[in-house]
């Protein structure tokens, strides 16, 4: 099994200081986290591994070097292998260029029955990368999975959560599955695995922190695979900004036409007057 994951800014725990005075997001106060639905996806993979001992989970992420953090989080929960795909050549990728890079990486990993990923990432909400990867690999997809009902060596039965209902479908392997947030949450970190992998990192990170590196003795810790554009077979022109058909033409600060708002205090007579006004103008009642 291959699980696709993304490190995203945590847009959910937006506190007061999350917005700067100019109305933009203060990214420095938003922690980078494991995209929530990708964790739901990892849990589904772990459940399958529980049922079929001997199956393995490879976690694949594309992003800057610090995205290795989420691979470590995956190891703590039971992933067997992790690959960080990182290269300046990928910078500025839209969903299509991202899915191309991921598909090329998966072709190199080659041996898989299932690719499982979150339905969408919270920083873009496009839900495009999963299906785009499946198309590039020429395999079927089952989106919006809420529950994997049954897995056999030949096929998989899945309950999908749609906008207005549910659907139970059956597909064969290989298949790409995207998982909804309505699926069970991911198990917590395992204490033993935490001890085992807490120093796991990539070679470049290890070299960066020269203390550890010079001190030696770190060899016993796992070095997480770090792949660059040279490690995969791909056409460079399909990567990054250049390989992205969508371009941002412009970004506008939005100025809403300010209305002349009437300010009302939280006082009985003021609120009573407002409700009267709403009723007499037939807006309510």
């Amino acid at each position, binding site marked *: 099994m291959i699980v696709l994951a993304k490190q995203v800014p945590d847009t959910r725990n937006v506190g007061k200081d999350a917005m700067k005075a100019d109305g933009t997001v203060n990214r420095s106060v938003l922690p980078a986290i494991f995209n929530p639905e990708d964790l739901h996806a990892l849990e589904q993979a772990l459940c399958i591994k529980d049922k079929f001992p001997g199956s393995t989970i490879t976690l694949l992420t594309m992003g800057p070097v610090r995205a290795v953090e989420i691979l470590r989080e995956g190891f703590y929960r039971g992933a067997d292998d992790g690959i960080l795909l990182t290269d300046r050549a990928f910078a500025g990728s839209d969903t299509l260029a991202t899915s191309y890079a991921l598909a090329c990486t998966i072709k190199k990993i080659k041996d898989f029955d299932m690719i499982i990923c979150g339905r969408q990432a919270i920083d873009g909400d496009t839900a495009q990368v999963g299906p785009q990867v499946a198309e590039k690999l020429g395999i079927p*997809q089952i989106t919006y999975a809420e529950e994997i009902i049954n897995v056999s060596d030949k096929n998989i039965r899945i309950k999908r959560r*749609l906008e207005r209902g549910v659907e139970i479908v059956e597909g064969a392997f290989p298949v790409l599955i995207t998982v909804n947030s309505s699926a069970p949450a991911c198990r917590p970190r395992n204490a033993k695995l935490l001890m085992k992998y807490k120093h796991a990192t990539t070679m470049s990170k290890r070299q960066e922190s020269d203390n550890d590196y010079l001190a030696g003795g770190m060899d016993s810790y796992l070095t997480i695979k770090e792949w660059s554009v040279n490690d995969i077979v791909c056409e460079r022109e399909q990567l990054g900004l250049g390989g992205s058909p*969508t371009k941002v033409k412009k970004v506008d600060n*939005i100025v809403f036409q*300010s209305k002349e*708002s009437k300010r009302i205090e939280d006082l009985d007579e003021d609120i009573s007057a407002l409700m009267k006004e709403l009723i007499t103008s037939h807006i309510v009642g």
Partner: protein
Amino acid sequence: MNNVCVYCELEEGKISDVSFELLSKGRNLATQLNCRLEALLIGNKLEGFEKEIFPYGVDVLYTADDARLYPYSTLPHTEITVNLFKETKPQIALMGATSIGRDLGPRVSSALGSGLTADCTELEIGDHEEKKNNKVYKNLLYQIRPAFGGNIIATIINPDCRPQMATVREGVMKKAIHNLRHTGEVVKLDVKKYVDDTAFVVKIIERHIEKSKVNIKNSSVVVAGGFGVGSAENFQLLHKLATVLGGEVGASRAAVDAGYADHDRQIGQTGITVRPKLYIACGISGQIQHLAGMQESSLIISINSDPNAPINKIANYVIAGRVENVIPKMIKYYKENTK
């Protein structure tokens, strides 16, 4: 060739509202571009649907009619759409940002190598000058959507790849009949030529489609809560107020993420778009993504303890106070004044 094409969705034997909304927008775009508006309908027993579709100004309706094509499944619908687009080469392709459109759109864009912008809130036609190579692109589709990062709105273009693809949520565009007498041509596709038997690999075993329990979209009063409501208990106050006023309860994304309300009540760019007579925003700060889904409300009341909340700028009335204090008063004085 190079027309505007709308993929029409079927649900429970009916064409979805979002498809009619997109046809209405597509008609505008096609008129501006001086090209034809085309529709693609894939399913089973499609005779007669043309009578519903042509009044929206559709010039050509492609149908792929086969018992195996309903309900929707990914690969067969993808193959038909991709193969048709390879022949007809539309310049613009629109789909609903629904369970179906969000499953199909990325697949089609990936197969054709064309760009896809999700959850657009506006679509316009405009030019683009590429300074790098001094090239001027005429009549591109501006795909406009709020972008992550607060109060900014991004205009996305696909200069070189066709079709220019976009998905739009239900309720964002307005449904408008073009001309009741407008009529076009029906082109029945030979399904065997467009989809291979091997595409039917994922089998649908069971389906339960439920009628949506909440009907926020058509409610004339919406009481919506944000993260500032503070707790699921306080959210119950919103339900009380909505019941008293004969309205529905909505929520911002932050409130949904915090577990105060169900996802099907989310209002905004990635939720429902509403245009009620009265919108009461309780403890909602007013991120652009939320405002995109409610700014066309006729009257907006904001209840917020923060006088500088962005939503106050577009509110007709701003009540400075805490939700749990203000709402009981609103209920009390509404009841007193309607006696």
